[in-house]
């Protein structure tokens, strides 16, 4: 059975596309057939983060408008078996997507035997973001431990609970997961950053995982490779944990505490 997952946040720049890329890649690594769709029409970026920007011939809008088949537009990833990318259009305006068109594409992907359909939402709460979340069975809400991001996440949770298809049809609600990114445990310890418990408390939502602030995320996007493929980095480990938890494994949360300093270091050391 296919599951539709929206990766959303309200606020921009918190790591939606990075998260979409790594989660879809890791789900495919686990043997699933995965399609990841960029809903950010006019400002596409998923293709760049996934390193397939030069292979885009047809895009999501072409398929919605019947100018290309889904098969022509899906870009098959060369690194990971079973991973497909559907790029957003760079030229059309954002009204090019329609509810019926999006539904048709999602139904076709389901019929093609895709296990997971990941919808990478644009920032904001306008039409594009609402279309990305409308058909979702599950939502991954990407949040930074920072006031404006938490506020916007709360807003998007309200929209999921009121305006998704599941909400409108009175079905079981969309399953909500929190992914906390750009987490800096030493700043949390210093009382300068909201802790994971604070954010869980504020949003009343289950934590799927914490991704520590990491240099590797920029390195990965520079080279067009989802960060999860860089085995040595903390961010990759964090995303692998996240996907394993998503698939039902019990895994203890990591990256919540800073590396231990010696006692003397703590007393007299530099901050």
């Amino acid at each position, binding site marked *: 059975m296919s599951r539709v997952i929206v990766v959303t946040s309200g606020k921009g720049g918190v790591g939606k596309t990075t998260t979409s890329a790594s989660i879809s890649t890791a789900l495919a690594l686990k043997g699933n057939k995965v399609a990841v769709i960029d809903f950010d029409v006019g400002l596409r970026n998923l293709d760049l983060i996934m390193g397939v920007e030069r292979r885009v011939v047809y895009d999501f809008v072409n398929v919605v408008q019947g100018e290309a088949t889904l098969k022509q537009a899906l870009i098959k990833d060369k690194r990971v078996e079973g991973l497909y990318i559907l790029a957003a259009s760079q030229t059309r305006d954002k009204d090019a997507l329609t509810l019926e068109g999006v539904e048709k594409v999602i139904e076709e992907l389901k019929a093609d035997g895709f296990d997971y359909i990941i919808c990478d939402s644009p920032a904001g709460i306008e039409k594009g973001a609402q279309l990305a979340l409308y058909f979702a069975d599950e939502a991954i809400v990407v949040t930074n431990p920072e006031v404006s991001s938490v506020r916007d996440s*709360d807003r998007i949770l309200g929209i999921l609970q009121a305006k998704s298809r599941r909400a409108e049809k009175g079905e079981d609600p969309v399953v909500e997961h929190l992914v906390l990114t750009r987490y800096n445990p030493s700043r949390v310890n210093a009382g300068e*950053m909201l802790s994971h418990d604070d954010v869980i*408390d504020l949003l009343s939502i289950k934590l799927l995982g914490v991704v520590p602030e990491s240099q590797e995320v920029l390195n990965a996007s520079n080279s067009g490779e989802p960060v999860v493929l860089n085995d040595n980095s903390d961010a990759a480990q964090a995303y692998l944990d996240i996907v394993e938890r998503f698939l039902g494994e019990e895994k203890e949360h990591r990256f919540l505490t800073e590396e231990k300093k010696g006692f003397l270091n703590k007393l007299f050391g530099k901050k």
Partner: protein
Amino acid sequence: MALLDYLLGQRKKKSANLAKDRLQILLAHERTEAKAPDYLPKMRDEILQVIAKYVEIDQDQLKISIDEENGFEVLELNLVLPEDK
């Protein structure tokens, strides 16, 4: 010195706590606002028109909200009447 910072730091409130306190108040407020029915602003205007027939009031003096208390939805109207001259 880290030890001194630690001891002094206890006295003033950490910014993360401040962030949490502010968000708690804000989110509670915004959630009730988001849940308010669409007809609320229009209803408010019409109620104001009726009241204005009888008393002279300031447009901003009428506060209207819908809250949930003990499983009941409560429509709350709050109007400050002008002082008699």
